C-alpha cells in the first residue's frame, strides 16, 4: 500500500489553524437546528402510527407479484439481517423457475436466493422457453395447520390475523414444521424453537412495511391493510385481476396472494 507523505509546504502553524477552523465550523453546524435530531420513521402503512392500534379490527394482506420479481435476493438479505436468521434456514426465500420447450420445469433456490440469481443455470441442455422467480414466505393461513397441531399453543393466530410463535412457550417438537404445507418453518438451531416469517409484525405495529417489502426494488412484494380502501393491496385484491394462493387444496385459506403465478408454481 502506498503511504502518502504530508505536504512539505504545510508547517505546524497552518496545520493548527486549519484544525481550529474546522472545529469551530463543525461546532456551529451541530448548534444550528437542522432537524437532524428529531428523526422520525416515516409512516408506511397509513392509519397506524401514533394512533391506538385496534387489534380486533385489522386485516392485512400480502401480495407477491411474480411478474415483477427479478430475483435480486434483496428481500432475503433484508430478512436475514432483520432477524439474524441462522445459515441454512429461511424465513423467506426466492425460487427460480426455468421452463424448457419440452415443458420440463427446472426449479432451484441455492441459499434460498440469498445471493441473488446472478448467473444462468448451466446444467440445462434444452432450449429455454421461459423463466421467472417466485418469492416464498409465510402464507399467514386463516386455517393454519401449524396452529392446530401445536401441542402447547405456542403458535397462535393473533386477533389481527398474524400467525405468530411464542418462543418462550415453544417446546421445539417440530410438529408445526411437519404440518406446514409450505415448509415456511424451521427449528432455529440456536434457540431450539420453531421460527418462521411473521410479516414483520413488530414493524407493522409501528406502521412500517415488512423489511422485505421495504427493500424490494421492483414492487414485487406488496403489503397493506384491507381496511384501507386506498391501499394498493386493497385495490388489487378487490380489482378484476387474477390472484391465486398456493396449495389451495390444503384448505388453509392463506392471506398471501400471488399475482401472475403460473400453474407450475407449488
Amino acid at each position, binding site marked *: 500500500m502506498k503511504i502518502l507523505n504530508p505536504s512539505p509546504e504545510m508547517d505546524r502553524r497552518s496545520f493548527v489553524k486549519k484544525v481550529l477552523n474546522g472545529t469551530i465550523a463543525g461546532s456551529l453546524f451541530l448548534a444550528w437546528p437542522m432537524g437532524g435530531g428529531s428523526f422520525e420513521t416515516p409512516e408506511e402503512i397509513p392509519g397506524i402510527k401514533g394512533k391506538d392500534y385496534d387489534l380486533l379490527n385489522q386485516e392485512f394482506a400480502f401480495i407477491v407479484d411474480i411478474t415483477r420479481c427479478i430475483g435480486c435476493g434483496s428481500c432475503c438479505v433484508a430478512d436475514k439481517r432483520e432477524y439474524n436468521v441462522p445459515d*441454512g*434456514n*429461511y424465513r423467506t*426465500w426466492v*425460487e427460480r423457475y426455468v421452463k424448457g420447450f419440452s415443458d*420440463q*420445469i*427446472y*426449479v*432451484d*433456490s441455492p*441459499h*434460498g436466493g440469498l445471493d441473488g440469481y446472478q448467473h444462468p443455470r448451466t446444467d440445462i441442455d434444452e432450449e429455454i422457453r421461459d423463466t421467472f422467480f417466485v418469492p*416464498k414466505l409465510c402464507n399467514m393461513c386463516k386455517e393454519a*395447520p401449524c*396452529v*392446530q*397441531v*401445536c*401441542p*402447547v*399453543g*405456542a403458535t397462535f393466530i393473533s386477533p389481527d390475523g398474524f400467525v405468530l410463535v411464542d418462543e418462550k*412457550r*415453544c*417446546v*421445539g*417438537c*417440530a*410438529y408445526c*414444521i*411437519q*404440518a*406446514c*404445507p*409450505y*415448509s*415456511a*418453518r*424451521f*427449528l432455529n438451531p440456536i434457540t*431450539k*424453537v*420453531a421460527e418462521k416469517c411473521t410479516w414483520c409484525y413488530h414493524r407493522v405495529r409501528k406502521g412500517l412495511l415488512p423489511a422485505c417489502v421495504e427493500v424490494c426494488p421492483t414492487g414485487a412484494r406488496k403489503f397493506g391493510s384491507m381496511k384501507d380502501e386506498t391501499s394498493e393491496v386493497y385495490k388489487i385484491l378487490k380489482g378484476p385481476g387474477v390472484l391465486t394462493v398456493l396449495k389451495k*387444496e*390444503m*384448505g388453509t385459506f392463506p392471506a398471501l396472494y400471488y399475482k401472475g403465478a403460473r400453474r407450475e408454481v*407449488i
Partner: protein
Amino acid sequence: MDAAHTPAAMLVTNYVFPNDLHVHWSMMIVLYPYITGLVDGAFIIAALYYLFDVKSLRPVARFSLLFALAFLAIATLPLLLHLGRPERNFNMLLTPSPSSAMAGFGYIYAVSMGVVVFIILFVYREDLVELRATSKGWLQLLYRALTFDSIDLSKDARKLDQKIIRFLVGIGIPIAVVLHGYVGFIFGGVKANPTWSTPLMPVIFLFSACVSGISAIILAYIVIRKAKGRSIDHECIKTCIKTLTLFFIMAFTFEMLEVFSHSYLKSGYHHMVEGLLNGPLASSFWLWQVKICSVIPLFVLGVMVLFTINKHVYNFTAAIVSAILLLQVLIMRWNVVIGGQLMSKSARGYTEFHPEWFDKEGIVAVIIVMAIPFIILFVLSRIFPFWTADNEINVK
C-alpha cells in the same frame, strides 16, 4: 423400477424446499411408536389371558405385563431427547392446546401407566404378600407399599383381586388401543405430508404394534427360558404364533392396501409417493420391509399354523420369525417416519437422511434408549418374579 424413468418423474427435477433439506423427526421419533407398539402388543397377550381366558398363555401372561411396564416406563425418553426444549415438556400437560393431536399424549400415557402398574400389583399381590413375609429391611418396606399394606389372602380377597384385574384389563384394552392408534393419528393427521395423511395410519400402526409386541414376547420368553436352562411351554408358543399370524395378516394387508390405494387412485401427489417408494425407499421399503421381513415371515407363519411341526423346530422357528417381524415393524416405522419426510413439500424432490453416531438423536443414543427397558426388566424381575411354580407348567 427406476424412478427416474417413470413418466411421472419427468416433472421431478429434484428441487427440495430450502427448509425441507433437514429431516426434523429422526430416529427418536422412529423409536417412539416402536416402543409404544411393543407395549401394546405385550398388553394384548396379557389381556388374552386375564380377560379372554386364553389359558395356554398363562406362562407369558405375567411376563407380558412386566415387559409392557419396562417399555412403557421409557416411552417418553425418546420424545424428551427429540424436543428442542425438553425442559418445557410439562407445558404439554399444564397448558395443552385442545386442537392438537399431540397434546393428548401426556394424559393417555399417564393413564396407561397407571392402569398397567395397578394390574401388575393386583396380579402379583399373592406373591408380594408372601415375599413381604420372608423379606427384611428396605425390601420389606417396598413389598409393604406394593401390597397396599394388606396381607389378606382369604378366598374373598382373592376373588376381589380377580374382579379388579378383569376390570383393569378391560379398561386397559381401549386405553392401549387409544395409546397406539393415537400415535398413528399423530402422523395420519398431517395433511401436508401425503404419505402420512391417511385414515388408515392409526389402523396400520395398531396392527403392527400388536405384531411387534407379540413377537417381542415370544422371542424374549424363548431366549430367557433357554438362557436359564428352563423348559419352553410349547402350547403357549403355539397360541402366541397363531395370534401373531392373525395380527400380522391384518397389519401387512393394511400396509399394502395403503400403497395399492395410492397407486390405483393416482390422486394429487401420487407421482411423488410412487417416486419415493421406488426411489429413495426402494431398498428399505420393497426389499427389506416387504420382501424380506413380510413375505418370508408370512410364508413361514402359514406353514407353522397349517402343518404339524416338530416341537423343537417349531420353537426355534418361532424365535426366528419373531425376530424378523420385530425388524419388520422397526423398518416400517423408519419408512413411515423418516421415509415420509424425505419427500419435500415442493413435490419436486427428495432429501436425504444420514444418521449420526453421537448426536442426542444418534445411533448410540438409540442403542442406549433401547437397552434401558431391559435393565428395568431385570430390576423388575428381582421384585416381581417372572415365573413361579404356579405358572411354570401350563394349566390345561
